[in-house]
């Protein structure tokens, strides 16, 4: 039993209190020799299955740390600004991420690829305070890893081919899509220039600007704002013919965006609001299973709109432009993936 524990637990350096990966022979922080642990076999990299006795997050063994060129840890000093740490090196495995499932969920369609990362590119070990061993977690609500939880310590990159949380089977996820990081015990998210964008659920109401995108169920929309007014009539000049618009009546538009960032339907309304849902709404999508009968309301204003979520938990998401603070319970849509941030247990 003792050897089993030693094989699976990190080793705290008695010299500097740094938490080293299991089976480390030398402290990655101060190069102090560590107590030798029994030889271990690499842990399975498929996400942990829940066990009936597991009542809290299990922490599988992180990948073995580099033994020749230990990386200097960041210690406990917080970053100087809200900016996330510099991008992580190219990593093909979620080795820096500790993950576990606390409940029984269906087996994911695709497990993580086997670890083939050379030591030189292994992620930097994180300095963990003993009081910080309960991390924030990301619960996958849908997509590749539905039902699984992913621990978030200091930083996490999400992408299709680069980062710690990989969605290699999702064509809507960019190679390096988004970053999450902790600062002052708060979680921030940033879109790393992805093609599809990062969408965050709104708590109740949120003001969106013209041209901002938001998604409801499986539908993506862009609020276009107020349409330009009809040009004034000038006697003797040819007027472009079209559908007559009442004078002094502002019209607002919402555009639906198809896969591939292609224009779809555009809906025009004189306001004061537009309802989107599955039944009897201004924009109704009866076949969209992720949409509530009356999912959200958009109260129209010339340069902005008030987006109100009425979905009772299904979520209405807005695309983020810069860094955004996340709260426990907030959800992220990244490609086809929906992840929910959960507070430390």
């Amino acid at each position, binding site marked *: 039993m003792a050897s089993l524990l030693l094989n699976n637990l990190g080793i705290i350096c008695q010299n500097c209190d740094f938490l080293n990966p299991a089976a480390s022979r030398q402290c990655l922080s101060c190069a102090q020799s560590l107590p030798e642990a029994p030889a271990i076999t690499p842990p399975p990299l498929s996400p942990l299955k829940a066990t009936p006795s597991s009542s809290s997050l299990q922490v599988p063994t992180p990948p073995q740390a580099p033994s020749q060129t230990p990386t200097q840890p960041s210690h406990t000093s917080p970053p100087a600004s809200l900016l996330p740490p510099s991008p992580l090196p190219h990593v093909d495995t979620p080795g820096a991420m500790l993950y576990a499932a606390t409940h029984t969920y269906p087996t994911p369609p695709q497990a993580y690829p086997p670890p083939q990362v050379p030591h030189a590119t292994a992620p930097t070990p994180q300095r963990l305070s003993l009081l910080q061993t309960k991390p924030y977690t990301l619960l996958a609500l849908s997509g590749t890893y539905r039902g699984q939880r992913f621990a978030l310590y200091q930083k996490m990159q999400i992408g*299709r081919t680069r980062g710690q949380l990989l969605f290699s089977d999702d*064509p*809507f*996820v*960019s*190679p390096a899509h988004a970053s999450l990081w902790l600062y002052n015990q708060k979680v921030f998210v940033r879109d790393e220039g*992805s*093609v*599809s*964008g990062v969408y965050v659920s709104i708590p109740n109401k949120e003001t969106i600007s013209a041209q901002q995108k938001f998604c409801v169920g*499986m*539908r*993506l929309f862009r609020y276009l704002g107020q*349409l*330009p007014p*009809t*040009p004034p*009539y000038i006697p003797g*000049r*040819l*007027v*472009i*013919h*079209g*559908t*007559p*618009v009442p004078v002094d009546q502002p*019209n607002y*538009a919402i*555009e*639906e*965006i*198809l*896969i*591939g*960032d*292609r*224009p*779809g*339907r*555009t*809906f*025009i309304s004189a306001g004061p609001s537009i309802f989107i849902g599955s039944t009897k709404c201004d924009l109704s999508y009866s076949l969209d299973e992720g949409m509530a009968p009356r999912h959200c309301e958009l109260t129209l204003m010339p340069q902005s709109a008030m987006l109100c979520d009425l979905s009772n938990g299904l979520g209405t998401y807005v695309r983020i432009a810069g860094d955004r603070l996340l709260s426990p319970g907030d959800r992220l849509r990244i*490609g*086809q993936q929906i992840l929910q941030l959960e507070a430390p247990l």
Partner: protein
Amino acid sequence: MPQVKKPSVTIRVVRADGGTENVYPMKTDVLLCGRTSELSLPDDPFIADVQIRFFFSGGRLAIEDIGGGNGVFTRLRQEREIAPGSEVRAGRQRLLVEAIPPLAPNADGTTAWGSPDIGFRFRLVQILEGGIRGAVFPLKIGDNNLGREAGDIYFLNDGFISGRHAVISASPEKLTIRDVGSSNGTFLRLAAPAFVENGDQFLLGRQLMRVDIQN
């Protein structure tokens, strides 16, 4: 060379309010129509000074749009093929046909996430007065019903559109449109000179013209 006998042509301009028609017999081989032309329609700001030309070609009457601008539309008598760039008028709506580009991933292999595409290849864009783009309706593969209260493309506030007005049939390669018995007709913009048959109707600006041809 034998002289080709030309038919007698009368052009009737139907007033929008349903009042008495204005009748213009065509006395020469060419008749120009516009705000300041022989057949004068001075009060319509949607018509160019010289908008259309009626002329004879081999003994048959033909029509040509020479004013551009808002164009001339001919009432559909049968199913017609349309393409991106075609324009349709139905009721008070002016609709432009556009193509939806095919799906193409980015250079890094990523596809932008969005609403599901059930095979849209074309769409109808509503043109508002002044040339502003209004509502847009993607056209699914198969029949797309256009009407006032129901269907795939509907205009609740347009009393000049019939409940079931027209059908646009889309396939990956082409589009066709046909009127399905509407009261006020479906009109397609003239893209090139065309022969005129007896009873043909044309829409320019707010004016509806009917051409009577008697041999």
